[in-house]
């Protein structure tokens, strides 16, 4: 089964119909294991029980960037190989990525409240994730602004790739800006290496969230394909009624 064979939407629908229950079950089981392990993980000697927010927060933050990477590959698929499913994937991935980014922001600020004493701190990481969230929203606004899906797809693909080039630049400049404005940062993640008791649940959760993303993406792509079929059928119907 190659990517070109998958280009046929009907074949894609048939394959994903078989795959989806397995993927959904696997992500549910992994999520259950990960949640159990995080709940039973020992408290941190400094942060207490709040360290458990990490097991939700870090996978979300990781996926917020991973999804943009997936969208960039899909954008290349749209612009270079003209793969018919690439723009479906890009369009379906954007709201999921925005949701992960939003959750990363929310869990981050909930974590920040007991640790830093405030919900929002103009910390470099928080700020750059917020900008990433804005870019996701801009991309979704672009998808919604244009009626013709293929036209919107090409514009969104260009913007996604420009964003992929710009995200590291933005990250770097926000780091610079942050050190300029607050010399002493409250939290240093790189100071300590994670203990195994934290690392294993974290990795399980990261894997579970990635599987969850794949499941949601495939389901959203199926919906998008069906939605486009309905749209085409309606246009044909309207044309027949007019004739």
């Amino acid at each position: 089964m190659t990517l070109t064979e998958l280009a046929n939407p009907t074949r894609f629908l048939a394959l994903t119909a078989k795959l989806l229950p397995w993927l959904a079950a696997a992500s549910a089981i992994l999520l259950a294991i990960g949640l159990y392990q995080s709940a039973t993980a020992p408290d941190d000697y400094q942060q207490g029980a709040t360290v458990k927010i990490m097991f939700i927060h870090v996978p979300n933050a990781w996926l917020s960037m991973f999804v943009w990477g997936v969208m960039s590959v899909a954008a290349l698929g749209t612009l270079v190989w003209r793969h018919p499913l690439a723009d479906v994937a890009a369009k379906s991935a954007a709201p999921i990525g925005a949701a992960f980014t939003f959750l990363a922001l929310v869990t981050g600020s909930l974590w920040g409240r007991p640790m830093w004493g405030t919900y929002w701190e103009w910390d470099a990481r928080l700020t750059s994730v917020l900008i990433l969230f804005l870019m996701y929203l801009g991309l979704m606004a672009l998808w919604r602004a244009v009626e013709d899906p293929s036209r919107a797809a090409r514009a969104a693909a260009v913007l996604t790739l420009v964003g992929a080039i710009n995200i590291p630049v933005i990250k770097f400049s926000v780091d610079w800006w942050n050190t300029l404005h607050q010399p002493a940062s409250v939290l240093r993640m790189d100071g300590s290496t994670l203990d195994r008791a934290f690392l294993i649940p974290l990795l399980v959760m990261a894997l579970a969230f990635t599987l969850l993303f794949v499941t949601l993406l495939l389901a959203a792509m199926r919906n998008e394909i069906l939605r486009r079929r309905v749209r085409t059928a309606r246009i044909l119907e309207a044309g027949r009624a007019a004739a």
Partner: protein
Amino acid sequence: MTALAALVRRDIRMALRVGGGALIGVLFFLSVVVLMPFAVGPDLKLLARLGPAILWLGALLASLLTLDRLFMADHEDGSLDLIVMSRSPLELACAAKALAHWIAAGLPLIVATPVLGLLLDLDLLSTSAVALTLLAGTPALTFTGMIGAALAVTLQRGGLLLAVLVLPLSIPVLIFGVAASEAAISGPRTFGAPFLILCALSLISFVIGPFAAAASLRQGLD
């Protein structure tokens, strides 16, 4: 080369004539800066401290708002199709259009900076620092904003959508522009490092902007 030079000349001439609207950007810049004291109060000390940030924000918004004219007018009268079909590469044509747009709409902002600096009680050194950083940074705003303008013209949408798409991309320019001007005015840091990074951002945008804009014009116009 002569075709590109002619394109630059034509764009500048049309921007400066009636209906061009390049100088409206300066007027907008002036209005934004004049609005600031009403928001933060007439305290000159505070205004001087905020000065570089106010000037940079004003210039950013002014150059953003003039951007949607970059391709729109040419699209309306059909000359954009001629440019796309012409023998000179579309990337270079986009770069020429952005250069002309910067000369017509960006340079006046920098010329206006000393006058606006007076209103904000900036001394000569601070004003020239801000003007210098604007000179180095506004090309990056124009060339990255051009991507948004190209998307907007292929989608027949302008205005707010363009601003929403382009603003996050211009954050690095704003950060280093303000950092360099503040370093020159008060900061313990040196002026050189952020200024050089600002120049680097402009140089990067010279490469990325024309290619992305040309790609979106080629894909989007039919």
